[in-house]
């Protein structure tokens, strides 16, 4: 186990470096630069700005400078938000995104697993069909359609919840973004749980458990649920990625000041360092998360040995 963990840890570094390199050079391929604006800068001032941010140096030199900065934990200054450094912006946005994403994930797991289980236990009944129909709808309707509908209904018509922003940070502001972000995941997870639960309920060890006279609730809770959750656990990695990419859209729609919004605005503004900062941050997050998923897998499935 420890050896596996160490191997994964060492393997993460080249992945990270390749990711940084691709992101660094890809964003430079996009035409236009951070200082192109509708009002053209006088050439002398533009030259001064490029020099100040070392953008006049050859690209490989800039890359070296950037990597050297990263080693010191310095993500560089933001080109667009002139008074902030990228680290400050990432640190301001991350807690918000984490709260949003974490709650969405939690909601998706709790609701998805319960709905999937109910459907499996009542296979081919109306409940089952209803749960599956709802989840199919959840998968088919993209969140950029669902989110404005939720705003219109709950914020504009009913006036129950805020239409956007983070306000004073109260939880009410997070309800709609969390639900919009969680809905597609609820749908996936409930389908996954249902499928695997049905399969598990037909397996021999469940029959044995029932045969030895265990009450049905113990059969499910003690024996069926662990193996039935395995596909859900393996889906956690992709789900995290989906929640992160989903939050880019959701944060934009709800005006939630998280990392996703920086990513979108940064890309449009050619704020190279900000985009890179967000990419690296998310990259590290996904690598770490996948690592934990592998570990959980080992705990849940006695057949997996590292």
């Amino acid at each position: 186990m420890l050896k596996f963990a160490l191997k994964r840890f060492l393997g993460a570094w080249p992945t990270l470096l390749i990711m940084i390199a691709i992101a660094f050079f890809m964003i430079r391929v996009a035409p236009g630069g951070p200082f192109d604006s509708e009002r053209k800068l006088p050439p002398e001032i533009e030259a001064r700005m490029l020099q100040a941010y070392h953008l006049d140096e050859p690209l490989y030199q800039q890359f070296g400078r950037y990597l050297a900065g990263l080693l010191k934990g310095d993500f560089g200054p933001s080109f667009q938000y002139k008074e902030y450094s990228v680290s400050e912006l990432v640190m301001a946005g991350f807690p918000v995104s984490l709260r949003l994403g974490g709650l969405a994930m939690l909601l998706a797991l709790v609701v998805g697993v319960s709905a999937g289980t109910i459907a499996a236990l009542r296979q081919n009944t109306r409940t089952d069909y209803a749960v599956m129909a709802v989840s199919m709808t959840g998968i088919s309707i993209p969140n950029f359609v669902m989110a404005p509908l939720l705003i219109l209904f709950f914020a504009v018509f009913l006036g129950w919840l805020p239409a956007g922003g983070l306000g004073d940070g109260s939880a009410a502001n997070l309800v709609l973004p969390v639900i919009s972000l969680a809905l597609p995941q609820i749908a996936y997870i409930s389908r996954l749980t249902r499928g695997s639960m049905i399969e598990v309920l037909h397996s021999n060890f469940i029959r044995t458990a029932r045969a030895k006279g265990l009450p049905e609730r113990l059969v499910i809770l003690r024996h069926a649920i662990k193996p039935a959750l395995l596909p859900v656990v393996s889906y956690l990695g992709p789900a995290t990625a989906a929640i992160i990419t989903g939050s880019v859209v959701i944060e934009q729609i709800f005006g939630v000041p998280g990392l996703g919004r920086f990513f979108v605005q940064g890309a449009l503004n050619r704020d190279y360092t900000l985009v890179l900062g967000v990419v690296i941050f998310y990259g590290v997050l996904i690598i770490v998360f996948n690592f934990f998923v592998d570990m959980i897998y080992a705990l849940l499935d006695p057949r997996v040995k590292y």
Partner: protein
Amino acid sequence: MITLIRSGLPTLLLSLCLACAAAGCVDSETGSGAKPAPPPPEDGVVLRKGNGGEPDSLDPQRSEETSAADILRDLYEGLMAETPDGSLAPGVAERWEISDDGRVYTFYLRADARWSNGDPVVAEDFVAGMQRAVNPATGSAYGQLLQAVEGALDVVAGRQPPDVLGVRALSDRVLEIRLVEPTPYFLEILHHSTAYPVHRQSLAEFGDRFARPGNQVSNGAFMLDDWVVQSHVKLRKNPYYRDADNVAIDTVYYLHIEEPSAELKRYRAGELDYTLTLPNNQFAWIKENLPDDLVLGPFASVYYYQFSLDNAPFDDPRLRQALTMAIDREIIVDKVTGVGEIAAYSFVPVAVSNYQAAQFPWQDWPPERRLAEARRLYAEAGYSEKNPLQVELFYNTSENHKKIALAISAMWKQALGVRARPTNLEFKVLLQQRLDGSRWQVMRMGWVGDYNDANTFLEIFHSTHGQNDPGFANPEYDRLLAEAGQTLDPVRRLELLQAAERRLLSEYPVMPIYFSVVKRLVKPWVLGYRPNGLDHNYSKYLSIDTAARGF
């Protein structure tokens, strides 16, 4: 099995889920069914404004985005200011004298002008601000706005140190500005953020970070309280402001909402008192459902297409004229944009004061005559049904730009048989393309006046101006503008500017399409709001009927 489902696992999981919802997602204080919570009582009388995007900076000399402009107008006060309807008003300067040759301005500063920490605002603070604006090390995009001041262009170009700038403090309360030539609109420039003073001690202490919350000391009606990036900027009333007794608002929130449709939703949900703009595609709905909140007014902004004059066949003025005449601007403003825009037959918008725009001579022709002339010119330029003009039309990605581009392509096709390919480019890509005249043919562009004078529109087609994308170089045009810049007699100056505009229009380097409108929603409890031509808005002129709003 059935008992299990009724009582066991699902109940457990569902209650878990409800527990999560209760703990994490529903605000326990406001409870369910409550309206969005009003701001905390210590905020006093609150105004909540939509601000579009995130401000790039709240440093008056470094900021260049319009998303920072109104915030800076609340935070700072220049030598000059504006009235609610946008006319020139005294700011920190209580009076001023202009020398007979129009080249030396002497400003007398108010004795009661104070920074938000109580320090007096002195002439040296303005000297520091303007020197900082032209200093290339600051990287100000607007430094050139001060080009009328002696030495400004040399300093911007790095040929001279900032202290040669012709701005001097004669005493704490007397400031002298020397100009290169009499510049009749000079006072208008002095309420632009570029010419704001800086609090020198904070600048010395914090350097380029002096404008951040906690560091910033400002001299306007408000001061910076907080800035949550990607969310809002919060301003508090400045108790030291000279006219603080007449400022009715205690706290202003500027909420950063890029999408007009998202802004509308938040307005409808009661989270905003005042929007920045409106989504065009919901205008009909707004007109029907929120007629009392809707405010429209002329805006000093022109929407136009420009031709690359270096790029054949657009070097032929007959072709440019044919294309300009072949579109029906009334249809575009009525059916395509439809928010009350004004069809443009000149380049200088109608909202610009003290100016009568020169017009295209064919403005009032009946459509048949206009189209016949367009066809004649098109044929003269060497095109016909069999040999149609093929043109690529660039616009930056936006629903509105796309609709207009499609309408214009269709009008060209119908009237002349032109085959236009409207192509959308991301904004930064469009800006990159325009740098090289050989890489584009026709391109959408827009211009908003920096100050209330025709010069801010006409000067961009001076042969040496950085904004002159078409590459229009006409010695007579340059001469007329230069002469207007030196003419103090307003009547003569108007004639010169009109002559320059006529010259510009007769060469067709650009095809004006419409003049935009100021369009926003303002709640009925916001009192004192009036739209103005530059869309410069000061929160100090507004007040709130708190009884009507409920807080």
